[in-house]
């Protein structure tokens, strides 16, 4: 019999086990590859830095997440592949022993089962690559249909080859060991259950003697199958760590970053400006979620100036709770170097350099500002004409210790008092007092006005009144509701975070399959005993109780470890200033509970399937 013939037949004979092994491999390869491809597509992640979308602050958080999750997804993949091949080979060790007992030479035994492993690894890894590419294509199409201009990146053959190669090698290396180990043991040992199920003979843990019979049998079997039990608990722990970080971290980061954006843009805010200026302003905000090329635009053009009469009208309208006039310009800015003194050495140490850049410079009236940015440092004070607040991208691109430095705008020096997360111009922005900017540039007045409408007001009616009045004063002026832009920003953020949250679903499904494999191994080991129990009066439900008890204990052990470490990692490492509300906690708890329940229900399948078998079938 040829090696390939035997191997293919053996794999086909064990359809369910083969299916589980291949599917687990497929999902591990697919989740890792998709994560890398997705990272490239959204312009952040493991291999690439932020590319013209998302501010530096957001990218830093996303990068952290993608890197952490990328490492975990890969680790989960390795552990799952290791467990899958361990189970696959454990189910064959007895056969290997029998073949050896019948006189089959070691090298032939090794060849038969190694061929099976190679076939499984090739199919699993290839299917994983195919699945990842399909999901990547689907996700790109979905992004496009949602209106996010994500450029089609060229197909990265090297990435595909790398992921395929790594997982293929891992499967072969980890799978070859149990085959080699078994090929070396004496046949008598290989056909002994205590060897092929990795069982120690005596239960290592004392179980309370008055506990129920099903619990007693379940627990003792669990501790006897120590090797497999430790592996599945380890596998589930890492999977739940990944799930927790992705779900809890994703939900917290989503909520936190949404709140930053909402605070920076403001809700119920309406923009009033000349139509070209309004389009330009919206374009500057859109840079957060799509690639927008900078074009020549004369911000200082006098036709964009907002007339005094418009501001007066807006200020007098009772339904309007705030009027925020701004002068938006595009100007050259320069870093101002600072010095610190080292008291120990008496040395003066320079901080920063003399870097130059072009930034959006926005003049604001501090007391009238409608936004409530998340600020590192503090906001500009009303009576301070030489204070500036800069956006996170400008800070990270051009300053070493921004809050200890200053910024030069058109030859005028400002102290940097705060850093803000701001989506406008993708965080490349400098806020200075409006009056100072007007004096510096000679531009007569603001070129945009933001107004906030009272939540109790009839919004459509108020907007239509503003439109009528503003166009009566200047027909080229328009009224734009910024909530639409805000929704697009939040939609993009939501898409990014939900994609990250959904990624571990692959790993969770793969882990569920591993648990099914473990339960199948457990049933195979106890098959004869379950038959005896049923022959002596146990109902099929009793067997389901024993098996489900075992899978619940390993699941709970993995869940507890994974969730505990996951929450600590999420709160301490990943999100700065996390926004955690009662609703967030309930949402996270609900998702994690759903993951636990779903995994447990899936793990019941082999037990339910086994319970439907006739008693005679089990006893044979």
């Amino acid at each position, binding site marked *: 019999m040829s090696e390939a013939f035997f191997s293919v037949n053996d794999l086909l004979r064990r359809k369910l086990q083969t299916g589980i092994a291949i599917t687990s491999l497929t999902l591990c390869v697919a989740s890792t590859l998709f994560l890398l491809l997705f990272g490239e597509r959204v312009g952040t992640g493991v291999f690439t830095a932020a590319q013209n979308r998302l501010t530096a602050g957001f990218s830093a958080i996303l990068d952290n997440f993608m890197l952490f999750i990328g490492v975990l997804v890969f680790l989960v993949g390795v552990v799952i592949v290791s467990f899958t091949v361990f189970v696959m080979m454990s189910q064959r060790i007895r056969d290997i022993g029998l073949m050896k007992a019948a006189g089959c030479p070691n090298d032939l035994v090794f060849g038969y089962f190694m061929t099976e492993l190679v076939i499984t690894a090739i199919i699993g890894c290839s299917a994983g690559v195919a699945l990842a590419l399909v999901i990547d294509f689907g996700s790109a199409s979905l992004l496009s249909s949602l209106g996010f201009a994500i450029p089609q990146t060229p197909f990265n053959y090297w990435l595909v080859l790398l992921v395929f190669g790594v997982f293929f090698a891992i499967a072969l290396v980890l799978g070859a060991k149990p085959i080699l180990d078994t090929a070396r043991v004496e046949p008598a040992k290989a056909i002994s259950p205590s060897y092929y199920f990795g069982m120690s*003979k*005596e*239960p290592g843990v004392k179980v309370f003697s008055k506990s129920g*019979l099903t619990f*007693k*049998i379940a627990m*003792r*079997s669990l501790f*006897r199958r120590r090797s497999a039990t430790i592996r599945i608990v380890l596998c589930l722990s890492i999977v739940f760590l990944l799930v927790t970080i992705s779900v809890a971290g994703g939900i917290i980061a989503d909520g936190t970053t949404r709140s930053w954006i909402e605070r920076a843009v403001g809700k119920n805010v309406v923009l009033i400006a000349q139509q070209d200026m309004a389009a330009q302003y919206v374009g500057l905000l859109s840079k957060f979620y799509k690639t927008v090329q900078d074009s020549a635009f004369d911000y200082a053009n006098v036709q964009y100036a907002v007339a005094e009469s418009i501001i007066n009208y807006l200020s007098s309208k009772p339904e309007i709770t705030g009027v925020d006039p701004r002068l938006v310009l595009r100007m050259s800015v320069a870093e101002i170097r600072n010095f610190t003194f080292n008291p120990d050495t008496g040395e003066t140490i320079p901080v920063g350099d003399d870097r130059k850049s072009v930034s959006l410079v926005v003049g604001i009236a501090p007391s009238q500002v409608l936004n409530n940015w998340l600020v590192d440092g503090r906001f500009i004070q009303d009576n301070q004409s030489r204070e500036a607040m800069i956006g996170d991208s400008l800070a990270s691109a051009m300053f070493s210790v921004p809050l200890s430095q200053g910024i030069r705008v058109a030859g005028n020096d400002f102290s940097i008092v705060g850093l803000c997360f701001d989506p406008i111009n993708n965080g490349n922005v400098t806020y200075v007092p409006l009056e100072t900017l007007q004096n510096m540039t000679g531009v007569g007045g603001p070129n945009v006005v933001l107004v906030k409408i009272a939540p109790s007001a009839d919004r459509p009616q108020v907007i239509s009144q503003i439109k009528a009045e503003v166009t009566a004063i200047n027909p080229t002026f328009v009224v734009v509701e910024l909530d639409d832009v805000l929704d697009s920003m939040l939609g993009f953020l939501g898409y990014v975070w939900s994609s990250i949250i959904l990624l571990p679903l692959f790993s969770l499904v793969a882990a569920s399959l591993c648990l099914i494999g473990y339960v199948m191994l457990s049933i195979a080991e106890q098959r*004869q*005993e379950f*038959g*005896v*129990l*049923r*022959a*002596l*009066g*146990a*109902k*099929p439900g*009793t067997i389901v109780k024993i098996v489900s008890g075992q899978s619940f204990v390993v699941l709970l052990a993995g869940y507890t470890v994974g969730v505990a470490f996951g929450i600590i990692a999420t709160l301490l490492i990943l999100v700065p200033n996390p926004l955690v509300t009662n609703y967030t906690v309930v949402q996270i708890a609900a998702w994690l509970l759903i993951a636990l329940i779903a995994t447990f229900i899936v793990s019941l399948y082999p037990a339910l399937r086994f319970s439907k078998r*006739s*008693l*005679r079938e089990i*006893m044979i």
Partner: protein
Amino acid sequence: MEAVVVSNLNKTYEVGDVKVDALKSINIKIGEGEFAAICGPSGSGKTTLLNIIGGIDKPSDGKILVFGDDLTVKDEDFLASFRCNKVGFVFQSYNLVSTLTTAENITFPMEWAHKPEEYVIKRLNELLETVDLQHRADHFPFQLSGGEQQRVAFARALANNPPLLLADEPTGNLDTKTGQKIVQLLQKLKDEKKTVIVATHDERMMELADQKLYLEDGELVTPDE
């Protein structure tokens, strides 16, 4: 009253396209308190017949009444309860639960029958004494010899004091001396007027039998045939 009535019973297994007739037109009546021995070569259908009488397997057609209950029409819940309370089964290969001690192996059928704890302890001591294994109560099956495991299997089968005991070649895996203890145990059960059906090749057990049934290729035959 008859304990077991088997009428026109057939059992056919299908292995792929091949049909194997394991039992053909079996008719048996075994009275209450009777000791019946089923003899025959390997593959003659002894175990299949015992399995059907014990509610482990179902016939392809025919009728099987045990203490008046037609097992062919009963569902799995009834059969589970029937096997727990009405039948004690002793397997050739002992089939003890490896994760339970001797005492636990003997008591678990009583737990399923919801017997009170005091009763379970009293009955356990009685059974350990019957099979002479008081000193092995806390040992696991792998710590017992073959003969001891078979005696535990007998004690387990008798735990709920079932009116019918089925034993499938109980001495088949034992040496002559150890097998003798099992024969003595069966003699004791016969004296207690239990209905016992044993599938066996063992001459010593055949001598105990009130009724001897010979099976050959799934059919009942008379010894001179």
